[in-house]
């Protein structure tokens, strides 16, 4: 065996050139140095994290209380932590791209074309798969079992595995900053450009395996949530008594089950092309890249609604709670949600109107696309009618919801414009499209996730987030959005191609400068969210809401302490009406001791989830670098963990009824001696999580 063969067997394609630090040392230009700095941030961040964990002795609690936990609430929180970290990275990349474009009008700018292409590829990939998906999965995880009166999801261990697979994928994207490079093929990774012939390096492989890990995790999440919502509802919680967030979560889960397999298949077939020389999407020997495009958007369009529907659910909850009214048109909202879910599978072709199919085919998909605007419009009117003559309180979640309605309608209108094939032919592949999808996804997803985070945070941690900083953040998110993306509509109509690293028309520059200012304001908006978190944690003693109902809200999740006990409900509730908890409050029989308490079985912690996630990431890393032994090791470990787990019988532990009863009695005693707070004072420290009884005529 030669030295080269031994080195390949041990390290595959990995060599010194893989590290951006080496590349920057050998070729010190600004673009390489930016790349090395980003890699350094990953390394420094990892070292700092390890140091902090060691110094504070947090390793044990990290593993024993969090990473191995099967509690849906902790898993939900961990999902949202991943989303926060990844959001930070992808937003910084966005700022870098806009900076580049504003500088690069007839000038080289600061990042090289290759580097710029990696930036837009990681930005899109992260924002969709490792920011939006974990964020909404986290919220669903935390909230849905509480809203349907369940103690956990249907399959707690599978839930942990989903989380850890997603984390593994996110880790892989982060590692690509410090080892190797990422794909330059955009978030959709179209072949033949992503085939070996054009991208022989590791970039597309990182993309393929990160996406594969995440899409497996998402498929399992969808399965888990659907089973939870269909099978774990408490007595009396008929489907039509579920809070709207549960409906949107159900619809999203169904979409996940049906829409993730096309993505898994698309990336798997691309991997077969790249690794084993298959010809699915190559230019020669019978490959057909349109198969990829169809597969990708068979996933990609339902994905849009996977992203947006949970946010619609959040808005429905928030607007109802802060308008102090029952949701207007509950049934129409449910029907609209499910209609959107069905229609989402009939429109995928509008992502490639210009690819040469006949005009009639385009017309069909154009009309189908416009049809989706109808149920969405129904929803907008329902939210407005919910606010109409309500007792409105403009807390941060409510502000985000109102900004969503205004902004999303604009994005929807440009969406209907793009659904008209002749218009699409004109603005196709310009930043008009970029402006459109940011105009729907930022209000339609991000605002919703932030609103949900602010709305349920007091439930999860027992104290409110600072409303002052929340409002500062809100202003930044909204102003930043309009400044950053409205200019792109103009530029797009002016013919500016998307993903341009350099530009040659000086007329573009003023608009690009406005856009970059907007991008920086959005970065400030993210920073204010972190400031808000820090300030709120610091002042938590003044903001506690232990009784658990800070917003005089309506669903079952508010009927338990904040933070909730690990078993959620001391006794499984019985539901008689929509807005179950509000109904009890209106009748004056909330906060009552139950007649009897039973022992509660809850799942024990398990190492299987972290093991499978870690092994999955190791396997993927080995595949990226063609390190055979490493991939086999990861693959075998993951499956052996599954088999070994199937032999474990002692999977539950019991919390005795006496303990449950004592905890519940302590909390009820606290509720009894707590002074209720009126809705007008809910943003003050007088708010201890017990809402003041309200005059019956407002009860609606």
């Amino acid at each position, binding site marked *: 065996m030669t030295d080269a063969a031994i080195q390949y067997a041990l390290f595959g394609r990995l060599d010194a050139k893989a590290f951006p630090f080496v590349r920057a040392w050998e070729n010190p230009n600004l673009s390489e140095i930016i790349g090395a700095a980003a890699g350094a941030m990953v390394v420094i961040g990892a070292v700092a994290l390890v140091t902090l964990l060691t110094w504070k002795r947090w390793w044990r609690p990290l593993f024993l209380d969090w990473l191995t936990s099967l509690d849906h609430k902790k898993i939900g929180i961990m999902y949202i932590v991943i989303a926060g970290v990844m959001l930070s990275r992808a937003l910084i990349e966005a700022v870098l791209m806009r900076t580049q474009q504003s500088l690069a009008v007839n000038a080289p700018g600061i990042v090289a074309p290759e580097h710029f292409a990696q930036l837009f590829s990681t930005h899109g990939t992260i924002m969709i798969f490792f920011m939006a998906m974990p964020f909404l999965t986290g919220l669903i995880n935390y909230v849905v079992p509480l809203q349907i009166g369940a103690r956990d999801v249907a399959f707690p261990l599978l839930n942990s595995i989903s989380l850890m697979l997603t984390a593994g994928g996110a880790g892989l994207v982060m590692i690509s900053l410090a080892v190797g490079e990422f794909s330059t093929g955009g978030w959709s990774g179209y072949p033949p450009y992503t085939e070996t012939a054009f991208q022989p390096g590791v970039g597309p492989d990182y993309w393929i395996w990160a996406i594969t890990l995440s899409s497996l995790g998402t498929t399992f999440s969808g399965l888990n949530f659907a089973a939870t919502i269909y099978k774990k509802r408490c007595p009396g919680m008929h489907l039509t008594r579920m809070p709207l967030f549960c409906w949107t979560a159900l619809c999203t889960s169904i979409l996940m*089950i049906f829409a993730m397999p096309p993505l898994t298949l698309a990336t798997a077939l691309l991997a077969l092309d790249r690794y084993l020389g298959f010809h699915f999407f190559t230019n020669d020997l019978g*490959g057909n890249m349109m198969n990829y495009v169809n*597969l990708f958007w068979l996933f990609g369009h339902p994905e849009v609604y996977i992203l947006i529907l949970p946010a619609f659910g959040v808005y429905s909850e928030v607007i109802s709670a802060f308008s102090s009214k029952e949701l207007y048109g509950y049934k129409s909202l449910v029907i609209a949600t499910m209609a959107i879910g069905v229609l989402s599978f009939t429109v995928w072709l509008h992502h490639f109107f210009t690819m040469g199919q006949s005009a009639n085919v385009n017309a069909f998909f154009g009309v189908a696309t416009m049809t989706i605007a109808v149920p969405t419009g129904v929803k907008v009117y329902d939210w407005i009618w919910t606010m109409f003559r309500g007792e409105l309180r403009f807390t941060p979640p409510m502000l985000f919801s109102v900004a969503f309605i205004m902004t999303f309608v604009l994005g929807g209108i440009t969406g209907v414009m793009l659904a008209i094939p002749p218009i699409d032919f004109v603005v196709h592949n310009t930043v008009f499209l970029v402006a459109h999808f940011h105009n729907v996804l930022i209000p339609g997803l991000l605002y919703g996730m932030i609103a949900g985070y602010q709305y349920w945070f007091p439930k999860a941690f027992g104290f409110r987030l600072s409303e002052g900083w929340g409002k500062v953040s809100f202003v930044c998110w909204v102003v930043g959005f309009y400044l950053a993306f409205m200019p792109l509509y103009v530029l797009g109509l002016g013919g500016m191609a998307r993903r341009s690293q350099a530009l040659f028309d000086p007329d573009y520059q003023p608009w690009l400068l406005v856009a970059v200012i907007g991008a920086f304001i959005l970065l400030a908006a993210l920073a204010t969210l972190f400031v808000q978190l820090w300030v709120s944690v610091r002042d938590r003693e003044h903001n506690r809401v232990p009784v658990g109902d800070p917003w005089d809200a309506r669903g079952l999740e508010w009927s338990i302490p904040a933070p909730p006990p690990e078993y959620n409900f001391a006794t499984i509730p019985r539901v008689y009406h929509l807005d179950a908890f509000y109904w009890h409050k209106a009748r004056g029989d909330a906060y009552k001791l139950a007649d009897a308490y039973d022992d509660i079985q809850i799942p024990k912690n398990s190492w299987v989830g972290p093991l499978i996630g870690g092994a999955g990431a190791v396997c993927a890393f080995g595949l990226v670098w063609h390190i055979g032994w490493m991939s086999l090791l990861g693959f075998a470990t993951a499956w052996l963990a599954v088999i070994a787990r199937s032999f474990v019988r002692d999977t539950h532990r019991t919390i005795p009824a006496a303990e449950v009863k004592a905890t519940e009695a302590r909390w009820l005693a606290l509720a009894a001696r707590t002074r209720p707070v009126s809705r007008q004072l809910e943003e003050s420290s007088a708010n201890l999580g017990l809402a003041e009884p309200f005059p019956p005529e407002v009860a609606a």
Partner: protein
Amino acid sequence: MSGLQLKHIGLNLRSSDELEPGEAEIGLYGFWIFLMSDAVLFALLFAIYGTQLAATAGAPGPQAEFKLGSAFVETLILLTSSLTFGLSAIAMKYDRTRAGLIVWLCVTLVLGLTFLGFEVSDFATMFRDGATPDRSGFLSAFFALVPTHGLHVTAGCIWIVVMLAQIAVYGTDARVKLDLLKLGLFWHFLDIIWIAIFSVVYLQGKLG
């Protein structure tokens, strides 16, 4: 009447066989959803295969490469294995001893492995003829669709071995029975996929 009420689609256990109420209902429901997702995957593989039928690019095509006789034998073996799995499930539910269950599971395993042996030998012949997946879009699609089913059968065989080990360790406790129900769904599902493969790939390729 409660004895006649089905809690989920497919063979139900007796209620005394459950570890906790609702466990079978939720677990089997979740597994049906998983199979649905897997069915979408196969449906797409079939669709890709359909679009690539003509993309032989000068490499050997279906007429030259498919052996109907061998595919028919494989079909018979796999369908028989579904029957024997069904017999094992009935033995699990009604027999007092475990002998029937174990014997039928072993027969199913042998049939599954025989099927895989035939399939691998088919592939080996194709490889010898130079019909490898890197030759054409058509062969790529063939080698994505049929071996994906084969890998599922392999997973099913490993699962049978694991379940035999669990029966050895734990007897037939509730967990083992529930897992066997899921394995059964998986095994029959693979049969249905194979029928589609036999019709769409082999019959169409040879006679169509």
